[in-house]
């Protein structure tokens, strides 16, 4: 247990440092992230530009900080959207039970069958790229897993004495869900949300890389990698390497943190247990 705590604490320290750096970006760089300097294009790291410059002469270190700010906020904000959506949907489905639950869960099954990236592409292609849109699109396409887990927990929680007692005392249903059921699911919600931030950052960078995410004039970790291929082929390795390293270290820290949290909050092998339960269900039906 203590091992997981150490890993989790280290991960959170790393994440805090990153958060401080991107939030306080102006403190760590004097340059303008969108400042084009055509006299200083494609400079190697060092020489007055810590991590070099891109093909427009923009300082990569500066763009990394401001881009990280955008990408991290997209990660957190879209998870906020998907968490609210997923928890509400899951709690309602689990609490209602019966045919409502069955219908709602079939809808989730269907949505999970669709490649999320494809749906994001489609929605992004129809709307104008903007930060808010990216947040909403990622939020609206990634809430299903959370919803399923919350639903499973609510399903078992709602039979527990404290819920029955609250019902008997005449507490309204929405209050029971909000005050009693959801707080009991918080370990699951916290772990899933942490995992989700990592996924959301990866989604944002992929979308932006494909030109369908954050508008190109705004720096984001994904935007910085647009055209990275050509720059690599042209030998300017530092342009894609640093944003990539930033993405990996952020997501890696989040992954370790969520894994640690999962162990600490005693949710070990939740996914596997689900698989095993599904198998048991199948084998029983098969008989």
């Amino acid at each position, binding site marked *: 247990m203590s091992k997981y705590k150490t890993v989790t604490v280290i991960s959170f320290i790393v994440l805090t440092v990153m958060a401080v750096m991107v939030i306080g970006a102006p403190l760590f760089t004097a340059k303008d992230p969108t400042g084009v300097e055509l006299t200083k294009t494609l400079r190697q790291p060092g020489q007055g530009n810590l991590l070099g410059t891109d093909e427009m002469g923009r300082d990569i270190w500066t763009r990394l900080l401001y881009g990280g700010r955008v990408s991290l906020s997209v990660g957190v904000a879209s998870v906020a959207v998907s968490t609210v959506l997923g928890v509400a949907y899951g709690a309602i489905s689990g609490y209602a039970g019966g045919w409502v639950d069955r219908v709602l869960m079939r809808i989730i099954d269907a949505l999970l069958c669709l490649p999320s*990236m494809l*749906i994001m592409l489609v929605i992004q292609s129809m*709307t104008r790229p903007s930060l808010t849109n990216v947040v909403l699109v990622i939020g609206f396409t990634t809430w299903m897993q959370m919803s399923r887990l919350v639903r499973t927990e609510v399903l078992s929680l709602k039979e527990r004495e404290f819920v029955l007692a609250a019902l008997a005392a005449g507490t309204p249903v929405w209050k029971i869900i909000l005050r009693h059921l959801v707080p009991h699911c918080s370990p699951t919600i916290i772990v899933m949300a942490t995992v989700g931030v990592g996924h959301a950052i990866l989604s944002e*960078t992929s979308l932006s890389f494909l030109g369908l995410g954050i508008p190109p004039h705004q720096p984001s970790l994904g935007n910085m990698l647009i055209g990275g291929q050509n720059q690599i082929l042209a030998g300017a390795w530092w342009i894609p390497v640093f944003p*990539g390293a930033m993405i990996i270290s952020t997501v890696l820290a989040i992954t370790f943190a969520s894994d640690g949290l999962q162990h600490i909050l005693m949710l070990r092998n939740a996914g596997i247990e689900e698989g095993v339960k599904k198998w048991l269900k199948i084998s029983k039906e098969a008989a």
Partner: protein
Amino acid sequence: MGRYVFSRLTESFVVLFIISIVAFGLVHLAPGDPAMALYGDQIQKMRPADRERIRENLGLNRPLPVQYYKWISNVLKGDMGRSFMTGRDVKTMLMERFPGTLILSSTATLIIISLTLAIGIYAGMRQYSFFDYASTTVSFILMSVPGFWFAMMLILVFCVGLKWLPSSGFTTIGTDFSIFDMLKHLILPAVVLSFTHMGYYIRLIRGSVAVAKEQDFVTVLKSRGIKNSAIVARHIVRNAMIPFVTYLGVSISIMLAGSIVTEAIFAWPGLGMMSVEAANNRDYPVLMGTILFSGVLVVGGSLVADLFCA
């Protein structure tokens, strides 16, 4: 068994129905309508009468359920409409591009299955050993690497540095098709697609092997004098495979999502590259067709996986 197959089939049809509604709804309920999307900002400059005419041509002035009914009955007849961009039949386009995605994702799946089974079983049997921690760390790193960035790094090393492999396309342009040439083009996309998805599988197998080996029946089998190797191969791995196979079915959708970016970066002519092009051009018939087609693939895949398990 028969009843199970039947109920699983019905379930799949329900899911497909919902998917078709989603595919339809996404395009028709999104802000702005397809007409607006098709002509972009130009539609603002059109006269209202022209706008109305376009809407009528596209059948957009009728109520949504009617439009859906028309669309879905056409789809069931095999008519998925024509591309806004090229005017070509969507079904033909899908069929043209599907082999590319099939080759890429099945190669990646083969790599995933062989590597992750070996690593996952070994790590699960030696839980908390050095190898186990190493494989966990590697899986986490693989989970955290954006596919397109990994692709760039591979290009940097193998195409720019070592000059061993081509960086894009299906075959070398201007040469006759040869399997060897195609395989050379396939290596990097397949490696990117498999490695960026491997982490989950390693964790999954490792976890289920670790759970399976702690089951009571393992001790019981030992008490009957059955060889350790047989217990691992016949019982532990077999039990651990169940969630893995189930997940393989579900993960078709994850593979398709992953192949979008991979195909785009390596210009690999598959469904993924086609959907990126379609998205950039707001080519709705193609996008709807791709969504529906992916849905069929995924639903079919998980159906096969589940029936295989049962």
